[in-house]
C-alpha cells in the first residue's frame, strides 16, 4: 500500500508537470525549436559551408549533437526552476507539503518532469536536424545514457535554484550568467583542438564540455574527452546534487518557515 501510494504520488507530480509544459507549449516547446532551428540554418548551413570540417567531421554534423544537448540542458533546467518556483510563489506547493508525499518522491517527480521536457525538446530538435543532415548514431546506449544523466543533472540544478529563489529575478540569474556562458564555451560550436593550451585547461573545468563531447561521441564516435571519466563525473554530479536537494528539502529551506 505504502509503495503504491508513493508511486501514485510520483506519477501525479510527473503528469502535472507534463500537463503544465504541454499547456503552455508556445512558451516551452516552440521557442527552443525556433532558436535551435536558426542555429542549424545559420551556423550549420550557411556559415558551416565556409568553415568546412571540424574535428574531422562536416561542420553541420559536428554541431548537431551539441545543439541537441544545449536544448536538453536549457529546457530541463528551465522546466524545474520555473515550475517549482511558480508553485512556491503561488503557494500551491503547500498542496504537496501538507500531503504525506516523502521528500524524495517530490524531488523525483519534479526531476522526471524536467527530464520529460528536456527530452521532448531534444526530440523535436533531433527531428528538425534531419532537414539539414543525415544523422546517424554511433553508440546508442552511450547517447541515451548521457542525455538522460545530463537532463537529470540540470533538473536537479534547477530544483536547487528554485529552492533558494525568492523572486523571478533569482531564477533568471543562473541561466543567464552561468548556464549560457558554460554552454557556449562547452564545445558546442568548436573542437577543443582549436583552443590555445590555456583555453583547453579552462575548458577542462567546464562540466558541460564533457557532456557535449560524450553526447557527440554517441553520434559520431569521436570525442575530445575520455568517455568513462565523463560518465563517472556525471554520476558524481547526479549523486551530489541529489543529496544536497534532499538535505535542503528535509530542512525545509525556502519552503517551511
Amino acid at each position, binding site marked *: *500500500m*505504502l509503495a*503504491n*501510494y*508513493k508511486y*501514485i*504520488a510520483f*506519477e*501525479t*507530480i510527473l*503528469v*502535472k508537470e507534463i*500537463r503544465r509544459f504541454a*499547456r503552455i507549449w508556445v512558451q516551452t516547446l516552440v521557442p527552443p525549436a525556433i532558436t535551435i532551428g536558426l542555429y542549424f540554418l545559420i551556423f550549420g548551413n550557411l556559415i558551416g559551408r565556409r568553415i568546412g570540417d571540424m574535428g574531422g567531421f562536416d561542420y553541420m554534423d559536428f554541431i548537431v549533437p551539441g545543439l541537441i544537448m544545449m536544448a536538453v540542458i536549457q529546457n530541463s533546467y528551465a522546466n524545474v526552476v520555473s515550475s517549482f518556483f*511558480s*508553485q512556491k510563489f*503561488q*503557494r*500551491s506547493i*503547500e*498542496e*504537496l*507539503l*501538507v*500531503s*504525506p*508525499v*516523502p521528500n524524495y518522491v517530490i524531488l523525483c517527480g519534479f526531476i522526471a518532469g524536467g527530464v520529460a521536457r528536456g527530452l521532448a525538446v531534444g526530440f523535436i530538435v533531433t527531428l528538425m536536424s534531419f532537414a539539414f543532415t543525415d544523422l546517424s548514431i554511433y553508440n546508442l546506449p552511450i547517447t541515451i545514457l548521457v542525455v538522460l544523466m545530463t537532463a537529470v543533472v540540470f533538473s536537479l540544478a534547477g530544483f536547487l535554484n528554485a529552492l533558494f529563489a525568492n523572486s523571478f529575478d533569482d531564477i533568471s540569474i543562473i541561466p543567464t550568467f552561468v548556464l549560457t556562458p558554460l554552454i557556449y564555451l562547452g564545445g558546442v560550436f568548436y573542437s577543443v583542438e582549436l583552443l590555445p593550451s590555456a583555453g583547453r585547461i579552462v575548458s577542462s573545468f567546464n562540466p558541460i564540455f564533457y557532456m557535449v563531447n560524450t553526447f557527440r561521441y554517441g553520434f559520431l564516435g569521436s570525442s575530445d574527452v575520455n568517455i568513462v571519466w565523463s560518465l563517472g563525473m556525471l554520476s558524481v554530479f547526479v549523486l551530489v546534487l541529489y543529496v544536497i536537494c534532499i538535505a535542503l528539502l528535509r530542512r*525545509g529551506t525556502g519552503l*517551511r*518557515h
Partner: protein
Amino acid sequence: MTSAISIKNLYKTYGNGHQALKGVDLEVEEGDFFALLGPNGAGKSTTIGVISTLVKQTSGTVSVFGKDVATHVYETKLDLGIVPQEVNFSLFEKVMDIVMTQAGYYGLPRALAKERTEKYLKKLGLWDKRNNRARMLSGGMKRRLMIARALVHEPRLLILDEPTAGVDIELRRSMWEFLQEINNNGTTIILTTHYLEEAESLCRNIAIIDEGRIIENTSMKLLLNKLDSQTLLFDLRAEIEPSAFAALSIERSRLVDPHCFEVDIGKDEDINGVFQHLQANNIGVKGLRNKTNRLEQLFLARLKSA
C-alpha cells in the same frame, strides 16, 4: 475518548525574532466542532501551520490522533485536511485537475480519486465548473474549492482557517450546513473565524488565543454562561411615546427609538416580568434579539482582561 489534536508547550520564534507562540497547550477531542478564536496576529495561523508541518516549531509537540506529527508523518498527514486562509492552488489549472491532483498526492487510485472528486465538487456546488480554470471562479467558489480539495482524501480531522472570510451571507450559511453535516458524520473540525456568530452557532468547544498564548479553553456553553448580563432589544408592533414608555417602569430599560427599547437582563434573571408589563399595557412585541453577539461580548472582555 482520543484527542484529535494534542498540542503541548508549543513555542515558535520566527527568523526575524518574532515570538508567535509562547507555550500553547491545546486538546481537541475526536468528533468535536472546535473554534480557535483570536485577534489578528494572535498565533492562530502559526498554530495551524505547525500542525500541518508548514511551520517548524521551536519547541513543543503536536500529536494528531495520538501520533506525533514529526515522527509519524505519513499517518498523521493522512488524517489531516487543511483549508488555508488564502488561496493556494494554481489559478491556471482546471477545477477538476486541482482536486484530482491532491487525491493523487494522497495515493488515491485514479478511479477512486475521480469518484471522490465528483462527490465533493457536487456537494460544494462546483461540479458545473469542473472544467473551468480556477482563476475564473468567484471568491466564494475558490474557498469551496479549497474545502473540496481538503476533503478528497476524507481526513478524520479538518482544519479551516477563516473559511468564510469575504463570503456572502447566503453562501456562508450553506457552508455552515455542509460543515455541520460532515461533523455529524464523524469528522472532527477545527475552525478559526472572525465571525463570532459563526463560532457560536457551529462550535461546541472553544479556545481563545492572544499574543501566542491560550487565554481561554472551555465549552461554548460554559463560556456563554460567564456573561454577567445581556442587553435584549424588544421590537414593538406600534410606536410608543417616551412618556408612555417611562410609565411602564421597566427596570434598567431605555427607549432606543419609538419602535424599539432595550433592557439589561442579569445572568440569573428572567424576562417574564418585562412581558407582563407589556401585556398589561397592551403593547405588542414583534421581535426579540440580543443587542450584541454574546460571544463577541465575552471575546472582547476576555482579550481586555488578558
